[in-house]
């Protein structure tokens, strides 16, 4: 009980909230990206691989050019290119989406490790290099609101960008024609096809868009949240993002709740560690993973109970036009 109270009092300080938001941001980019991809009916389990590639190439590009934006753009392009492999394999060549996604994660992790050891100046490792990073950019006026200002408006620009991206994604998905097409392709590709929507084209498009957002999430990690490159720095965030898509029931708005929840877990863990608690660090580090399982169990249970329709109906299923004789 004491622990719970001390966790709560820890959480509601402006600095912990600020860390919560910052830590949740890269997760939110990845979750939003995977929501777009899965909404089109493509399950991409390569999030972890794309994210870590976004982190390493983003940092390397920023380090080489001295420009953080070059890093962001590189991370996005690399994420998109990796997603293109998945799209080609699963849409054109009709390979298993599960296995292709796993392959992408394994391939991406290996390639990131390789690049991390070669992309420093003259082929040296990137580990330990200090490169440019996104600094805090207080929003004039808003940042001086007591409490909330420090938590929400003294952040880096990629955090503000995600504040805008969420309502935009929501509006796009539910209120625009291309958003309708996207949802139709994921729910009922036969009907979408009959309506004249290019099913394969849309699936390609949103798999790539999803990969770009995931790559951006990775770049946020290495350029803003914990600037620099360390091997395995995504530490399962890509997989947590996939769990958050389920938690969010494929809705960008709910994804925010999930990202904040996991940002908070992260922040609590860091605070407890900094305070010197008696709980061993390993157990604190387990928290996000154990919590992911817990959240997944609760949400699955609740969904079965309330019979809510969650996943896009055609998620994971390849679409081939009826073969006629």
């Amino acid at each position, binding site marked *: 009980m004491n622990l719970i109270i001390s966790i709560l009092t820890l959480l509601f300080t402006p600095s912990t909230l600020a860390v919560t938001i910052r830590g949740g941001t890269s997760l939110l980019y990845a979750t939003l990206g995977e929501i777009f991809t899965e909404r089109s009916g493509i399950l991409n*389990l390569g999030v972890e691989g794309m994210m870590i590639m976004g982190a390493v190439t983003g940092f390397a590009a920023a380090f080489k050019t001295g420009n953080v934006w070059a890093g962001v753009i590189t991370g996005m392009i690399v994420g998109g290119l990796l997603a293109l*492999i998945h799209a*080609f*394999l699963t*849409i*054109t*060549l*009709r*390979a*298993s989406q*599960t*296995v*292709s996604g*796993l*392959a*992408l994660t*394994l*391939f*991406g*992790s*290996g*390639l990131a*490790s*390789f690049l991390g*050891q*070669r992309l420093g100046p003259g*082929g040296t490792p990137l580990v330990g290099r200090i490169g440019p990073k996104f600094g805090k950019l207080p929003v004039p006026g808003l940042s001086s609101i007591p409490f909330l200002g420090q938590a929400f408006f003294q952040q880096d620009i990629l955090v503000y960008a995600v504040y805008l991206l969420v309502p935009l994604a929501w509006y796009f998905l539910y209120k625009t024609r291309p958003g309708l097409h996207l949802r139709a392709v994921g729910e009922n590709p036969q009907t979408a096809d009959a309506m004249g929507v*290019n*099913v*394969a*084209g849309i*699936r*390609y498009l949103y798999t790539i868009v999803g990969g770009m957002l995931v790559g951006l999430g990775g770049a946020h990690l290495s350029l803003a949240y914990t600037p620099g490159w360390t091997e395995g720095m995504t*530490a*399962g965030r890509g*997989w*947590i993002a*996939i*769990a958050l898509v*389920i938690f969010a029931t494929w809705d960008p708005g709910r994804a925010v709740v999930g990202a904040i929840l996991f940002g908070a877990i992260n922040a609590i863990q860091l605070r407890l560690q900094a305070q010197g608690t008696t709980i*061993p660090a*390993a*157990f604190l*580090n*387990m928290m996000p*993973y*154990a919590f*992911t*399982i817990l959240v*997944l*169990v609760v949400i*699955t*249970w609740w969904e*079965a109970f309330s019979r809510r329709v969650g996943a896009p109906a055609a998620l994971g299923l390849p*679409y*081939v*036009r*009826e*073969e*006629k004789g």
Partner: protein
Amino acid sequence: MILPLKVEKRLSPSRLASFLVPFISLLLALIFGGIILLSAGANPLTTYKAMLLGAFGSKYSLSETMVKAIPLMLCGLGVSIAFRMLFWNIGAEGQLAVGGIAAAGVALFGAERLPDDLVLPVMFVAGFAAGALWGLVPALLKAFIRVNEIIVTLMMNYIAILWVEYLFYGPWKDPAGYGFPGTAQFPEAAWLPRLEGTRVHLGLAFALAAAVFIWLVLGRTKWGYEIRVIGENPRAATYAGISLVRNILLVMILSGGLAGLAGMAEVSGIAHRLQKGLTVGYGYTAIIVAWLGKLNPWGVLLVALLLAGLLVGGDQIQITMQLPAAVALILQGAILFFMLGGELFTRYRLRWERRPVEKALKPSLVEGKGSGS
């Protein structure tokens, strides 16, 4: 762009294609890896030659390849039986870790109280049981509340790996180890016997026995028949009165248990203690092993040996050529990509269309042709 290509489903999978695809995939992966090596300023041919010699060139390197093949075989067999019924067990890494923990626990705290001849059998059972329990958690969650097993098994990997680290950095750390992160060395009764003059240990026999067992189960028993039916069509299986719940639980006991055995064999056959380097990704490579081995036990053994060679070759070029060992991981991933893509050709036939496409009459089956836009 519209290609005059037509994709037609074959009536039965092409034998020629099934045979050729793995080799062509390997070749393409090597070419692809070569491009990456070139861009990193390394000569692909000399690198590959060094990898090949490093993995299979001498008696020593061959035995090291075999040493790495053992956990890949055990985990690969475990993963493949789960994949057979479309249960995506991505958790072999964690199951291996807890198997190692359990076996180490027996060796460190039970060996003195047990007769020497019983130490290894108890470690064997403990390793299998720990892996099986770790695998049962996602199985129970999947069987009863349909929780996504991919994420649960994966999250449990991270938890298990942190737990191993906690133990050898913390309460199980060797007090006489000068701060070295690892437990004390096990008493000799807890060492798996080795092949004379090599590090190849009895775990190899576990793997071979497991392959025979799985082959018999799949081909000769009602249980194996049920697993295969579920894998082909879960809905039909339930209509036929096959219990999904029971099969998920049983298969995951076996799958997790085999990975747990791999962990037991690693600590007891190689390191003789719990230390850093128990979890080096065998559980993940096992996914590739299982898939490239076509989920067939003999295929798994063969591919495990090849991929172990790739890993040993990767370590070799790290030492001799200062190239990252991760080259091996890149190649693994690339082989899997090309295999996945190539499988299309075993199931479908590509045909050039002679005449102009009669679009209005025959809706084309080529779904991918206009999709690059």
